[in-house]
C-alpha cells in the first residue's frame, strides 16, 4: 500500500525533525535539575510536564530522539558495511568454502541474542552508548549478510552478469558495477527494518542500564526512571513509550512501503489483482 510509505515517512520525518531542532533549540535545558518545578503537570511552561528532578520532558524527548537516531545510524551502518560485502561475497561464490564459512559464522552470530551480546560487552568494556551501538550493529550483521547473499544470487544468474563476464569483467568490477546497484533497493528496505530493531534494542539496553549513560537523555532511560512513579505519574512513562512505539512503527512501515514501492515483482502482482 502507498499509505504505509507515507505514514512511515511522516513518523520517521517527525523523529528526525525533533532531533535536528534539538541541536539549536529546546524549550528548556533537558539536563537542568530544577527542584522548584518537580513533577510539574503538562501545560503552561512545560508542555509535557517535568520529571521528578524537574527536567522538562519535551526537551528530553527531543534530545533523546538524537540519541535514538545516532544509535540507529551507527548500528545499521556497522551492520551494512560488514554484512553487505560478506553477503555479496557468499552470493557470488555460492559453492566455495569461503561462502560456506561466512554463512556458518553468520548463523552462529544470528543465534546469539543481541541484548546478551550488549550486556556482555558492557560488562567487559563498560556500559555506554558506543558499546550498545557496536553490540547492536554486530548482532545485525547476519540480517544484512543474508539479504545481500540471497539478492546477489538472484542477480548472478541473470544474463547481464553473463554478458559482463563475456565482456571481460572480473569479480570485483561485477560486484561494484552490476550487483550492488541491483541489490541496493533490498538493502535499503533491510536498513529501515533493522533501524526499527536497533531503536528497540537501544531503549531496552538503556532501560536495563547498559546503554546510554546519564545525563545524556535517552528514551529507554526515561522509561526506566519513570518506573518508580508508574502509578502516581504514569505520563512520565507514557511519553517515552509512545515515542519509541511511533519511531519503531515509522521505520517498519517505511521498510514495508519501500519494499512494495521498489520491488517491481510485487508491483506487478498488485496490478494484476
Amino acid at each position, binding site marked *: 500500500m502507498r499509505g504505509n510509505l507515507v505514514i512511515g515517512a511522516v513518523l520517521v520525518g517527525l523523529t528526525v525533525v525533533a532531533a535536528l531542532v534539538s541541536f539549536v533549540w529546546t524549550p528548556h535545558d533537558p539536563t537542568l535539575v530544577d527542584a522548584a518545578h518537580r513533577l510539574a503537570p503538562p501545560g503552561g511552561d512545560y508542555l509535557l510536564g517535568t520529571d521528578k528532578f524537574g527536567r522538562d520532558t519535551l526537551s528530553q524527548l527531543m534530545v533523546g530522539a538524537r540519541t535514538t537516531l545516532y544509535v540507529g545510524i551507527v548500528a545499521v551502518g556497522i551492520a551494512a558495511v560488514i554484512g553487505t560485502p560478506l553477503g555479496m561475497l557468499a552470493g557470488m561464490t555460492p559453492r566455495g568454502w569461503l561462502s560456506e564459512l561466512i554463512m556458518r559464522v553468520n548463523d552462529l552470530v544470528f543465534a546469539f541474542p543481541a541484548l546478551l551480546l550488549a550486556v556482555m560487552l558492557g560488562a567487559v568494556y563498560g556500559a555506554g552508548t558506543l558499546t550498545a551501538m557496536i553490540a547492536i550493529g554486530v548482532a545485525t550483521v547476519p540480517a544484512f549478510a543474508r539479504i545481500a547473499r540471497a539478492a546477489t544470487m538472484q542477480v548472478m544468474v541473470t544474463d547481464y552478469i553473463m554478458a559482463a563476464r563475456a565482456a571481460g569483467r572480473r569479480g570485483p568490477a561485477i560486484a561494484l558495477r552490476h550487483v550492488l546497484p541491483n541489490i541496493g533497493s533490498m538493502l535499503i528496505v533491510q536498513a529501515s527494518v533493522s533501524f526499527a530493531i536497533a531503536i528497540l534494542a537501544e531503549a531496552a539496553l538503556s532501560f536495563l542500564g547498559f546503554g546510554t549513560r546519564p545525563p545524556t537523555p535517552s528514551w529507554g532511560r526515561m522509561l526506566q526512571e519513570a518506573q518508580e512513579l508508574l502509578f502516581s505519574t504514569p505520563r512520565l512513562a507514557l511519553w517515552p513509550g509512545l515515542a519509541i512505539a511511533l519511531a519503531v512503527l515509522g521505520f517498519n512501515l517505511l521498510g514495508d512501503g519501500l519494499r512494495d514501492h521498489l520491488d517491481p515483482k510485487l508491483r506487478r502482482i*498488485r*496490478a*494484476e*489483482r
Partner: protein
Amino acid sequence: MLSVEALTVRADGVELVREVSFGIAPGERVGLIGESGSGKSLTALSLMGLLPEGVSATGSATLQDQPLLGVPDKRVKGLRGRVVSMVFQEPMTALNPTMRVGAQVSEVMTLHGVPRAEARERALDLLGRVGVEAPRAYPHQLSGGQRQRVMLAIALANEPSLLICDEPTTALDVTVQKQMLELIVELAPAVLFITHDLAVVASVCSRVLVMYGGRVVESGPLREVFTNPRHRYTEGLLAASKLTPRGTRLPIIPGAVPSRFPSGCPFRDRCAHASPACESDPALTGEGHAYACWHPRD
C-alpha cells in the same frame, strides 16, 4: 455462440483496445494474431473478467446468451472455468506448486459443485486424455509440456463451451508444441487462439483476426487472409514470417510497434503506402473477408 460487439478497453483514458467485434460459432477455432502491444491479450482477459486493476472494458460480449461484460464480478466468477476457460503461456506459475496435479484438476470441478468422488474420477480420465499418466505428481516433477497439458485438463474440466488459449505453446519446445496443438484441436470445443506465430495459428484455426494498435485490421477465413492479405500490415507480417534463402535480405516492416499509435490508421507511421487519407480512421469493411485499410493490396 460467442458474440463480441464494440469491445473497448481503456486504462487512464487511453484506448488500448478499440471497437473490437467478432463472433465464434460452436466448434469453430478462431485465431487472434498480433504482435506484443497489439491488444490481443487484453481482449482475451476482458472476456474472462480478468482485467488488471485500473483497466476497464466497455461494449458487449455474450457467450451462449450470458453477458460477460458489465456484470458483477460474482457472476463472471461463476462463468469462469465453467462456461469459458483459459490456458496461459506460462504453465509453471499457473499451477499451485504444493498440490498434486490430479487434485488441482478435480478441485476446479468441486468448486463448481461436482461431487468429490465423481470429480476425482473425471480428473483421472481427463489427465489420461491429455496424456499425463502421473496424477499424483507435483508440478515441479513434470516437464513444461506436461504442465501445459495439466493446464489444458484443468481448463477443460467443466466442459466449457469456449476455450481461450493465450500463447499456450510459446514457452514450449517445437516437438512438444506440435503435440499440444494437436491436443487442443482434438479436445477443445470452440477456441479463441491468441498467438504472434502465424504458422501456429495456421495449423490450428480456420478463421483469423489480425490485430494492430488495439484494433482488428483484417479478418476472414484463414486461408483467404493468409494467401490474399488486403491490409498492408497483414501483408508485411506474412512477408516477414517467411524466411528467404541464405544470402538474401529478409523482407521487413520498418520501425517497431510504438507505445503510442498514431491517430487514424494505427499502422500509417510504418506503412509504405500511407497517404493523407490514412489520417482518418478506415472502417473494417467487407463480407467474410474484411479489412480496414485505405490502400489495400489488390
